[in-house]
């Protein structure tokens, strides 16, 4: 199980390596909407779901793949913690 402090950096690192191709890291806020800001295009979301499932050992149900869970670093971290059944 990961703590909130461990999850967000992994997501930021994944996004900057795979979507921003930037050496400067993830320069958006943790509240920035992936879709609105255009960090991830539509096909990229499928990869993001796979990454989350593999990296954090959770399974994402169809109805859970919604913006409330997936559209920013904050929302995604919170979702992963809930799925892992931990966190405060």
């Amino acid at each position: 199980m990961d703590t909130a402090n461990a999850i967000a950096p992994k997501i930021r690192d994944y996004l900057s390596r795979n979507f921003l191709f930037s050496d400067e890291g993830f320069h958006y806020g943790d509240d920035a909407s992936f879709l609105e800001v255009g960090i991830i295009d539509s096909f990229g979301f499928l990869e993001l779901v796979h990454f989350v499932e593999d990296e954090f050992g959770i399974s994402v149900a169809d109805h859970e793949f919604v913006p409330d869970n997936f559209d920013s670093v904050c929302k995604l971290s919170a979702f992963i913690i809930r799925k892992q059944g931990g966190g405060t």
Partner: protein
Amino acid sequence: MLVQEFLTHSATRLPRKVALVCDNRRLTFAELDAMTNRLGNALVDKGVRRGDRVAIYLRNSVEAAVGIFAALKAGGAFVLIDASTKPDKLRSILSQCRATALMADSRADAGELVDLLRGVPSLTCGVLCGPVGPDTDARLHLFDEIQIDSAATPLPSVNVDQDLACLVYTSGSTGEPRGVMCDHGNVDFASTSIMTYLENREDDIVLGVLPLSCSYGLYQLLMTVKFGGTLVLERSFVYPALILQRIQEERITGFPGVPAIFAILLQMDRSAFDLSSLRYITSAADALSPSHIRGLQDAFPGVSLYSMYGLTETARALYLPPSQLASRPDSVGIPIPGTEAWIEDEDGRRVGAEQTGELVVCGRHVMRGYWESPEATARRFRPGAVPGERLCHTGDLFRTDEEGHFYFVSRMDDIIKCRGEKVAPKEVEAVLHMLPGVTAAVVGVPDPIGGHAVKAFIVSRGDPLTESEVIAHCRAHLEDVKVPTYIEFRSELPMTPSGKVSRIGLT
């Protein structure tokens, strides 16, 4: 009829009816009409004249819908540029069509928009949709301010129906952008023909998940406005569960999609959603497999399923009447109402049933050609038997059955269809060749969710490369759909006798 009259006529007839649901807003025809007048007047004020190109670099949004009709009301032609287009290609399209005005949102922040205004000489006006940044320029205007300051008075009509209404950009065989010139008469004719076979009515509520930048997505807006229905315009199909929820909430009756979308929907648990409002589903852009057809029929009993074939150069060409689906599920049907189509062999002779040849399309929906590309135009758009008639040679191989129903066989060029979009292997290879010491060959391989996926075979003689480095490089230079899904490193690639890389045998 002029395309902007789709809106003005519906606004006169149904002023208080909801025309557009988008971005948490519900706009009536009267409101949409007024917003387009405000922007249209502003565009004229900033120098847009009859025939000028107004580029719209926006995702599906209220601003994009308003921009389309505002450009027309100003007498211009709109040019939608897909929001995933990378900066280099955006600049090249703007320069190629010599756009006078550009609408963009905060993704292209004010700084980038200012750079474009300075870098593309034809641009005299930028309209920024979203918050303003620190950079500014006298030619840069804010959409929200225009909606407050500019007059909502109707604009005088300055067009005839032979004027261009839009350029719809598509990929040529080497991936170079080509603008299909569509005049008002073309768009009016195609819209009416499609509405006729879909039997659209004022109480239809259509779901727009396809990008307005593609012809299939664009016509959902144009037709819905024309027949006085409601368009529920979504950003994309990123969140499938959200789309099912929209169908339930908005009581959607018409759902236009592509096979890749339907493949995802069919894999989902849909039991929590009430989808009973659906009247019809349309599929185009890629072949709908018999298993998807059966799946959709089981999942949506009583819903009319239209399997169709189209290309940007004619908007739509063929459709299968739903009554024929059971007896010929692999056919894309017959020519759309008011048009004709046939199959020709290599010598230009019409062939009979069960013989394969190129599909040729004839009718008022055959567009005017490619913007400032006379050679490409001459290959695709050729004169017909009657003086003035234009035929579209589609570049796709078809056959017909004895009853005259058409069946897609294959493409004549090496374009890959990925999730309904055209990908030119040469364009992807050109990007890969930017990497030092790389030789690459790009092919389409079957995609698990239907259609094809892009696969790149790479020989690297320079510094060692990893798959993720290659993908990152492609992402920086290509739209998402063109980024290879699969990468395979090889020590060599097959060659033709003349020494060129051959794609034959690569899978």
